């Protein structure tokens, strides 16, 4: 057992923290208000490896392990949830599938663009009528016509669409009613027949754009098929497993930001002649937040570590995401409580953090779905033993 980060990782973490505090944090409030990501910072990210966390150096990435990638997302989330979500989705959902299942040609075409600082990657699974239940509900369909795929359907709630050079789109390529019905096809958003709808008006994460996107007889060359035909559902589940570690890390980051703000505020704000930090009821919140945050972070790091060991990580990733997202809810809630009326004001960052964290129990699998995944795994383990 060793809970110490390697020297390399400590240096990386400190560098990312400096970068986030100098380049992102000062723009986080404006990003939330204007709905525009801090692009000056994003353009500088390739130097730090943030746009190709687990992409090979050959394609401009940093080739890091999952633990390092999680720490990076955590640090971004600590200062700006919107940037955190877009960078998390870019790495895990946009780059991830191409890194894992892309052909050499697909990698050479797309990864250098994705790591360049000019674009952000995207994965389109959800549809207006189906999120949790893609297997039964996803309708977007593609058929082969000569050496082209022809795609029809609509995807909803897709992050980064407006900045993506290419989108990984989950489509049905068969209608057998099995998990082998699905494939993933790479589609550029500027293909004829693609419509990107206006950005969704959201509660939080306002600078991270989320769009509906429709495909009407969209034609792409057959080489745009990612991996094998029929393996789309499997690739999706694999991608979501690892994406969950990243959402867990993002949750920990947002919670950390709120935690720091609330402790500082409690030490400064006075009531009944002393800092409110001296009051036991406030200390209870601080202590609980410290405990929960520590637990959540350890689970996220462990999930990352298990994945890096090459072991099956479905259960631990779901556990980490579930716990971290619920901890973020609690910590941000108490951070507002400790700030009193100022916490309810847009002049203090905890209000934004609370709205931003709210997605974490919904995106990349709701808490209900995480519990289903965990229970299914546990029951299976008991069945085997």
């Amino acid at each position, binding site marked *: 057992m060793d809970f110490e980060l*390697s*020297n*390399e990782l400590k*240096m*990386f973490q*400190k*560098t990312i923290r*400096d*970068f986030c505090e100098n380049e992102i944090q000062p723009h986080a409030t404006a990003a939330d208000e204007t709905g525009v990501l801090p692009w000056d910072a994003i353009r*500088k990210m390739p*130097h*730090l*490896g943030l746009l190709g966390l687990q992409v090979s*150096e050959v394609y401009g990435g*940093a080739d*890091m392990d999952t633990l390092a990638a999680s720490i990076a997302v955590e640090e971004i989330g600590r200062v700006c949830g919107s940037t955190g979500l877009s960078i998390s989705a870019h790495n895990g959902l946009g780059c991830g599938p191409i890194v894992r299942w892309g052909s050499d040609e697909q990698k050479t075409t797309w990864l250098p663009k994705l790591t360049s600082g000019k674009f952000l990657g995207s994965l389109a699974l959800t549809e207006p009528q189906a999120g949790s239940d893609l297997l039964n509900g996803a309708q977007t369909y593609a058929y082969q016509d000569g050496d082209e795929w022809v795609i029809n359907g609509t995807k909803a709630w897709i992050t980064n669409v407006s900045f993506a050079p290419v989108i990984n789109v989950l489509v049905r390529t068969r209608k057998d009613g099995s998990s082998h019905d699905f494939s993933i096809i790479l589609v550029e958003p500027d293909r004829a027949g693609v419509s990107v709808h206006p950005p969704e008006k959201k509660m939080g994460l306002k600078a991270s754009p989320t769009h509906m996107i429709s495909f009407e007889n969209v034609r792409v060359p057959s080489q745009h098929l990612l991996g094998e035909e029929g393996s789309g559902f499997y690739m999706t589940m694999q991608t979501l497993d690892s994406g969950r570690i990243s959402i867990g890390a993002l949750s920990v980051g947002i919670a950390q930001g709120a935690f720091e703000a609330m402790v500082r505020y409690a030490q400064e704000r006075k009531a009944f002649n002393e800092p409110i930090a001296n009051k036991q009821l406030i200390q209870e919140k601080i202590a609980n937040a410290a405990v929960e945050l520590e637990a959540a972070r350890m689970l996220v790091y462990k999930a990352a570590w298990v994945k890096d060991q090459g072991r099956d990580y479905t259960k631990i990733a779901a556990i980490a995401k579930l716990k971290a997202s619920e901890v973020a809810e609690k910590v941000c809630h108490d951070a507002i409580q400790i700030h009193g009326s100022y916490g309810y004001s847009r002049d203090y960052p905890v209000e934004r953090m609370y709205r931003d964290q709210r997605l974490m129990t919904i995106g990349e699998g709701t808490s209900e779905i995480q519990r289903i995944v965990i229970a299914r795994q546990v029951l299976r383990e008991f069945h085997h033993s």
Partner: protein
Amino acid sequence: MQIVTFTRSTPDTAAKVEVNSSGVVTWGDAATVVNPWDEYSLEEAIVQAKNTGGKATVIAIGPEMHNEALKHSIAMGLDEAVRVQADDLDMTDSLGWATLAAAAVQKMGNAELVIFGKESIDVATDQQVYQTARKLGWTMLSYVSKILAIDTANKTIKVEKVLEQGKQIITVKLPVVISVMKGINEPRYPSFIGIRKASKAVIPVWTPGDLGVSLPGKTSELVAYHNLPARAVQTEIITGESVQEKAAKLVDKLLEEKVL
């Protein structure tokens, strides 16, 4: 061209530095950072080494804690790092420090440009910069705000220097020691490639013996450290009917206190 620059680890600027009950300066368990002024000299060394097709070496003088600053330097892109360790060096003894610094530069053999940050925030002085130049017998150019040209064939350097009255553009013969201002460049963040290199780097340690020098006798003695006396601050809120009236009262007060 071979360029040499110096750095050291100093307490994080956000850390609370104080003298503890045993009279020792502490900053709790706050992290150390690269002396903030050195960010500019390190960046300039990287840029000029690249421009002249040369190499940039960073040196720290002092105990192992300074490896942190050296590793940060390598992560930024310095080609190599060296630490000079003299067990009996008092870090406030600038002449002793400069003796080692000059000897280390000479040991590099072919160095022609030494770049310092404006000062060290821990000891809050820059006298070691001038003493190093003096020990080397090189020209000293302080407060450089821009390096305009380095002519490696004719061995000259042209810089812009900040004076009290304005700016001075000056060309001198190499070798030189310069100290650079904040704003001469925008220091880069360490890159992930640099961090990878830095975390694996084994930093060589030179002793005064390796440098062929011994420390000069100390010219000053540090007697004791004291915390600054707590400042008594009195707050007064100026009242008045209108903003104009409040402003007028404020101006009167400031005149009374001879602030204006």
